[in-house]
């Protein structure tokens, strides 16, 4: 059945309330089952041997001694994962990232793996594997990797997007250019031109739960995978391809997830666990250590960005140019392209151009991190806008409002925006009491904006009504931020029943059609849409059953407030039939009552946010303490406001950590120096004030409830907001994130030295 996804304004009974979360008790009592919380009879322990070198040729791997160790059941190398990728370059890179193939491309790259009866035996076996390496020159810095004399990682990589096409390989995988207008003419109109260069360091998503899975492959080609993931259907498809399994014979179940933020959209060790299980013919549990998570699973890019912006004295930005260099780790990505698409997206700039360079270096393969690539670009743009505002003597908020994107503005990547909420968020910031609060000594205030896309994608939902009238809702998008609660609320709203009568579950890959990964802030948007349509399908069945029970035509039945109502002069005296009454008779009126929907949920809206940050900078240590923080973001429609606020707060907290402390530190030897939470410092509670939130609701016209994704956008503004606050507090413009105490102190010393 085709359904209309257009927004329709309505009064809600359940949606918009703050009901109890369904997973709360299990999580606080320790009953919730995460990736490492299951075991299987006869299960083995998997461990991975990783390269200690950032770049090396693997001359020989001798596993003979390890194989003789009692308790070792299987050892694999790349020879046990033959290349089945059929020329698919992206898939080949995933395969090579999971297990090195003749060369190690970064410190931590997997080179072999063991399955043994216990942890101790597996660890001992790893030490008995003899790998002969030939060390190669390495490069870990994005700017250095672009130099003509840099060691080249891939001899078959020639820069795309450059004319004429290069004849020599390099570490630059692609050049991207976007924008419109005549930037030279725009700069000629400007009264003020500001140019700045920025750097941002590599950060990790920092999810508390490490990657973990339990794999079991049978000789008949069937297999099961229990895994912490943001997308079990995608994991199924990728693992099937890499292992040569048939899709229907690999059942993947997603565990509870202890944070993902983009890092669990990609496979890392799962194909390795499956290959170990296949070889050992026993189940294999593989859990990464924190050291492995840092060294070998997807951090975000480090970047180097140049910005040039020109403005008239009235605040109109006449031209803007960004040149951005993003490293994708050891394999090519599209991270700089995403930087180009987002850098100027909050603004209407008549002449704009963004150039992106995607670069490979000897670091782990980069993965998406919450609004991937946008925070770095926004750091550069939002900082530069504040510099412009100061130079022309205008409020930084008013400069932003003067140039703000609206419905009808052409996005930097081409199309025209529909209804968007960036102006609403800026106006809300301008009038917020936070902006009028007095600052103390050494304190400063900064504002910044952020943009991120939302995506929709393939979605499949089942809704089954039990004979007592309670409802099982089976959705296929992993619940990373409260989706089970939101989906149950939506189903209850549509059916006209109580929230407590709906139980939402995340279905495994054997129980539902394909669902795209929970990424791009799509979970509530797309599964919400499919849930609405599945519920409407079920209502169609309920009406038919009521008509049967009454013995009247279907056309004379309406569904109102959770009840079937008979209409028309002939039947209006019939008492209403509740959902529970109809369900109780379902066995005699046609069997189970269910609704189903499969949809490509296109039409996702755009996400915009504006943040206010107050910071206090200690002039003696350079330490910056966030003293007050406010997030204003457009949610389209907040299904469960607690969860929406939680997403705003979580994203802001991660952005603040990125702004102030978090960074990968590589030594001259190309090895990661701080692969643990003691030395890689994410914010803890004592670092943060309560993050205030304000939800705006500018409905997305392409969703029945007006929903926009909310999960990612608010990680975008914090780097700029913190940098602008530090500049306000100290008079020093920080251009290198994180703005950690040593960097701020150094900048303060330079200021004082004149």
């Amino acid at each position, binding site marked *: 059945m085709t359904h209309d996804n257009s927004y329709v304004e309505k009064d809600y009974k359940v949606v918009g309330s703050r009901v109890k979360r369904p997973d709360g008790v299990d999580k606080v009592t320790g009953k919730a089952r995460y990736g490492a919380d299951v075991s299987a009879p006869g299960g083995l322990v998997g461990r991975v041997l990783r390269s200690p070198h950032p770049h090396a040729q693997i001359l020989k791997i001798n596993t003979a001694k390890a194989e003789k160790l009692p308790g070792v059941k299987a050892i694999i190398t790349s020879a046990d994962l033959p290349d089945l990728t059929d020329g698919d370059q992206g898939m080949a890179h995933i395969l090579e990232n999971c297990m090195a193939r003749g060369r190690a491309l970064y410190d931590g790259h997997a080179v072999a793996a063991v399955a043994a009866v216990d942890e101790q035996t597996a660890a001992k076996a790893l030490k008995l594997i003899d790998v002969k390496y030939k060390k190669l020159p390495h490069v870990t810095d994005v700017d250095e990797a672009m130099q003509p004399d840099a060691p080249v990682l891939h001899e078959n990589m020639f820069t795309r997007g450059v004319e004429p096409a290069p004849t020599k390989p390099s570490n630059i995988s692609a050049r991207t250019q976007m*924008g419109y207008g005549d930037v030279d003419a725009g700069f000629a109109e400007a009264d003020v031109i500001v140019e700045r260069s920025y750097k941002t360091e590599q950060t990790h998503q920092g999810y508390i739960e490490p990657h973990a899975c339990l794999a079991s492959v049978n000789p008949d080609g069937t297999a099961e995978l229990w895994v912490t993931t943001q997308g079990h259907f995608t994991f199924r498809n990728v693992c099937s391809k890499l292992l040569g399994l048939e899709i229907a014979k690999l059942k993947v179940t997603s565990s509870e997830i202890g944070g993902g933020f983009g890092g669990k959209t990609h496979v890392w060790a799962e194909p390795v666990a499956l290959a170990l299980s296949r070889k050992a013919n026993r189940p294999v549990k593989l859990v990464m250590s924190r050291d492995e998570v840092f060294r070998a699973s997807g951090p975000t890019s480090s970047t180097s960005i140049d910005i040039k912006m020109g403005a008239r004295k009235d605040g109109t930005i006449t031209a803007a140019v960004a040149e951005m260099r993003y490293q994708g780790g050891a394999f090519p990505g599209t991270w700089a392209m995403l930087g180009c698409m987002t850098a100027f997206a909050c603004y209407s700039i008549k002449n704009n151009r963004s150039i992106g360079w995607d670069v490979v270096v000897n670091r782990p393969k980069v993965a998406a991190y919450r609004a991937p690539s946008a925070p770095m670009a926004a750091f550069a743009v939002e900082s530069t806008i504040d510099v412009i505002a100061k130079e022309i003597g205008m409020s930084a908020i008013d400069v932003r409002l003067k140039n703000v994107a609206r419905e009808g503005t052409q996005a930097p990547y081409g199309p025209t925006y529909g209804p968007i909420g960036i102006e609403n968020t800026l106006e809300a910031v301008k009038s917020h009491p936070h902006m009028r609060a007095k600052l103390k000594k050494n304190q400063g205030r900064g504002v910044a904006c952020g943009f991120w896309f939302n*995506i929709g994608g393939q979605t499949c939902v089942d809704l089954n009504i039990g004979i007592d009238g309670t409802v099982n809702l089976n959705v296929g998008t992993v619940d990373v931020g409260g989706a089970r609660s939101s989906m149950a609320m939506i189903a209850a709203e549509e059916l006209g029943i109580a929230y407590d009568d709906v139980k939402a579950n995340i279905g495994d890959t054997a129980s539902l059609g394909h669902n795209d990964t929970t990424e791009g802030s799509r979970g509530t948007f797309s599964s919400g849409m499919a849930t609405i349509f599945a519920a409407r399908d079920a209502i169609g069945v309920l009406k038919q059953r009521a008509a049967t029970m009454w013995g009247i035509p279907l056309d004379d039945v309406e569904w109102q407030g959770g009840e079937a109502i008979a209409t028309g002069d002939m039947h209006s005296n019939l008492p209403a039939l509740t959902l529970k009454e109809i369900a109780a008779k379902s066995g005699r009126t046609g069997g189970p009552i269910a609704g189903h929907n499969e949809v490509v949920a*296109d039409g996702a809206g755009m996400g915009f946010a504006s943040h206010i940050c107050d910071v206090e900078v200690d002039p003696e240590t350079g330490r910056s303490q966030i003293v007050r923080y406010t997030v204003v973001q457009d949610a389209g429609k907040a299904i469960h406001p607690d969860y929406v606020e939680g997403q705003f707060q979580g994203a802001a907290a991660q952005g603040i950590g990125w702004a102030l402390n978090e960074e990968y530190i590589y030594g001259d030897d190309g090895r990661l120096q701080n692969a643990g939470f003691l030395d890689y410092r994410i914010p803890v509670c004592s670092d943060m004030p309560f993050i205030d939130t304000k939800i705006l609701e500018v409905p997305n016209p392409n969703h029945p409830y007006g929903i926009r994704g909310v999960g990612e956008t608010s990680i975008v503004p914090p780097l700029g907001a913190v940098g602008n606050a530090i500049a306000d507090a100290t008079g020093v413009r920080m251009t290198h994130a994180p703005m950690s105490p040593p960097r701020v102190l150094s900048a303060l010393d330079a200021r004082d030295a004149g």
Partner: protein
Amino acid sequence: MLGMQVSFSSMFRVGDGPEPINVQAASIEELMQALLLRYPDLQTHIDQGVAVSINGQIFRDDWTVAIPADAEVYLIPRIEGG
């Protein structure tokens, strides 16, 4: 079949460059077929991932979507997220 002007996000180099071109198509599927007939090199971009923006609404996957007359149509890169 409807005629329309198709624009390209300026990262795409199609034909003579990023200038809009006229195409006859009633759906995304027909649009892609028409573009590939004229510009076979576009296949590289499609393989790397494209999306189609129709009047500002972005379609990533469903090529059965109809394109209304006089719609603003853009080919843009396919987005993923975190």
